[in-house]
């Protein structure tokens, strides 16, 4: 059977419709955005490994990618250059400045998230005030450094986040073969969450080994599962919803190291009802951000 443009489009469209992504015939990608009801907000993204020499150029590139899949907004975190697990205050400040530049360039499509390091708490708190209290940022994280998140040094940072009612995205992994020095696990985050039961904590990557990570955070209701940044292994999102409820599962991509496509597929390809997908893709993160967005007069 000779392939034709019509049969190819039909074939591609059949796939997308079942993924809740309607397809049209426009050039070049033949792809239309997600249905509006999903209102996808990506809670976990970075500017690293993205084409472009400046935060503004990289943001433009990401927006082009978002438009192809119908992603409405990004929460942008640290990470423009190579990752530093023990950044100097100067490096932290530069990272935050880059994120704020990207967000100011596309305020309609991105919100910023604060980078701090528990290695220097006093500096971190000043940075908190500069970027969140007095600046445009609405979230904290992805926190990732060589200090595990159950360390007491995290307490004043979490307390400040609680005071301003902003969520914290904490990197976690449970790596087969062992974590890096100081790399946090979901169990570390549980310890922190139990010291701060009113804090809103997002478990980055749900520990990667999600079958273990989901179990680790299950009984700690102020921890939410971030599904970003691991291979799109089937069953992840279904198990997270089964064990935590759809209200505790949050979509993120971990771009630029990951693609929007592989990560949003974890939701679109999951065997879940539409209302659950709406919560995961955007409803939950908007609910967590609602107080700070309202306080800053920002749209949600």
């Amino acid at each position, binding site marked *: 059977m000779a392939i034709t*443009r019509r049969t190819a489009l039909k074939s591609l469209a059949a*796939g*997308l419709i079942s993924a809740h992504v309607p397809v049209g015939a426009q050039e070049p990608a033949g792809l239309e955005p997600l249905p509006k009801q999903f209102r996808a907000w990506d809670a976990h993204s970075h500017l690293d490994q993205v084409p472009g020499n400046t935060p503004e150029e990289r943001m433009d590139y990401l927006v082009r990618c978002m438009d192809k899949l119908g992603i409405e907004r990004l929460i942008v975190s640290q990470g423009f250059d190579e990752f530093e697990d023990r950044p100097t205050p100067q490096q932290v400040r530069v990272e935050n400045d880059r994120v704020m530049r990207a967000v100011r360039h596309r305020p309609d499509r991105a919100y910023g998230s604060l980078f701090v390091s528990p290695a220097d708490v006093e500096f971190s708190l000043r940075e908190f005030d500069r970027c969140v209290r007095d600046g445009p940022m609405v979230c904290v994280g992805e926190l990732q450094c060589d200090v595990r998140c159950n360390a007491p040094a995290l307490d004043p940072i979490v307390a400040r986040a609680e005071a301003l009612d902003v969520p914290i995205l904490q990197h976690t992994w449970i790596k087969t073969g062992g974590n890096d020095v100081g790399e946090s696990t979901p169990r570390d985050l549980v310890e922190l969450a139990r010291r701060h039961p009113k804090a809103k904590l997002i478990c980055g990557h749900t520990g990667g080994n999600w079958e273990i990570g989901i179990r680790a955070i299950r009984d700690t209701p102020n921890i939410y599962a971030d599904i970003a940044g691991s291979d799109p292994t089937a069953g992840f999102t279904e198990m997270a919803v089964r064990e935590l409820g759809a209200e505790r599962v949050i979509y993120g991509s971990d771009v*630029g190291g990951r693609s929007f496509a592989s990560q949003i597929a974890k939701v679109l390809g999951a065997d879940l009802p539409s209302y659950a997908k709406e919560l995961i893709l955007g409803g939950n993160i908007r609910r967590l951000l609602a107080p700070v967005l309202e306080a800053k007069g920002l749209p949600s």
Partner: protein
Amino acid sequence: MIDTNVHLFQWPFRRLPADDPDEFVLKLKARGVEQAWAGSFEALLNRDVSGVNERLAAACRKHGAGYLIPFGCVNPHFPGWEEDLRRCQEIHRMPGVRIYPNYHGYSLADPALIQLLASAANRGMIVQIALSMEDPRMQFPLMPAPPVDPKPLAKILPGMPELKLMLLNAGYWDGDDAPEIRTIRAAANVWFDIAMNEGVGGLDRLVAATAVNRVVFGSHAPFFYFEAALLKLLSSELPLQQQMRISAENARQLLRDSAYSFKQLGGIEQDGEQFAKMRGH
């Protein structure tokens, strides 16, 4: 759409949605897949590879000619692997084999593998090498299987121009610009699937680094959500014509070429014609 990278049956370490072949086929058809090249998860750990291949062929036949195309497994370290290869082609009518060096404990520099590649090339069979099956950081702790190092292929490929080699799940070398990797990317007889291609713009980079006629659609379903590969393809910046090539045309051409080689085999020419007819050529 032709999906060149699916597996049937159960992943050893987790029940997957749609790991029942009947349910899986329904799901693939609902997503617009017109043909899927199927290996067997059983091949990873079962030692009776001949039995694995028989069950795979039977399951594929059950779903109608030309829909699931079986790719059996051959372990070149097993005694009598040549017979497995023969059965794959002559009994089960498989156009190729899929091998798992990291689960079977050999490298791509292994002389036994080189013999297997040469034999498959002589038979006109496609060889799919699964460079990985799972992120090593997420593997079962008692059974780590690090990704396969593809670099030895750079020395092998120039001596085997007839070999039709497809590298599956080649995600762990993105950004690696070693001379060997550049050689493999440039080889005219090496195809790449997209299942583990990652990063923003990842597919555009893969096509730029290889060739648009040597990139094929592969989902690694049901281990991965099928939609991951589909959305990578459709959200790429590639023109529609190139997306269409990747989605089906390249795989179709590769199979057609394989079928022609198959047809040239003495004594089974008729089967070769049927083989081609079955696929609508």
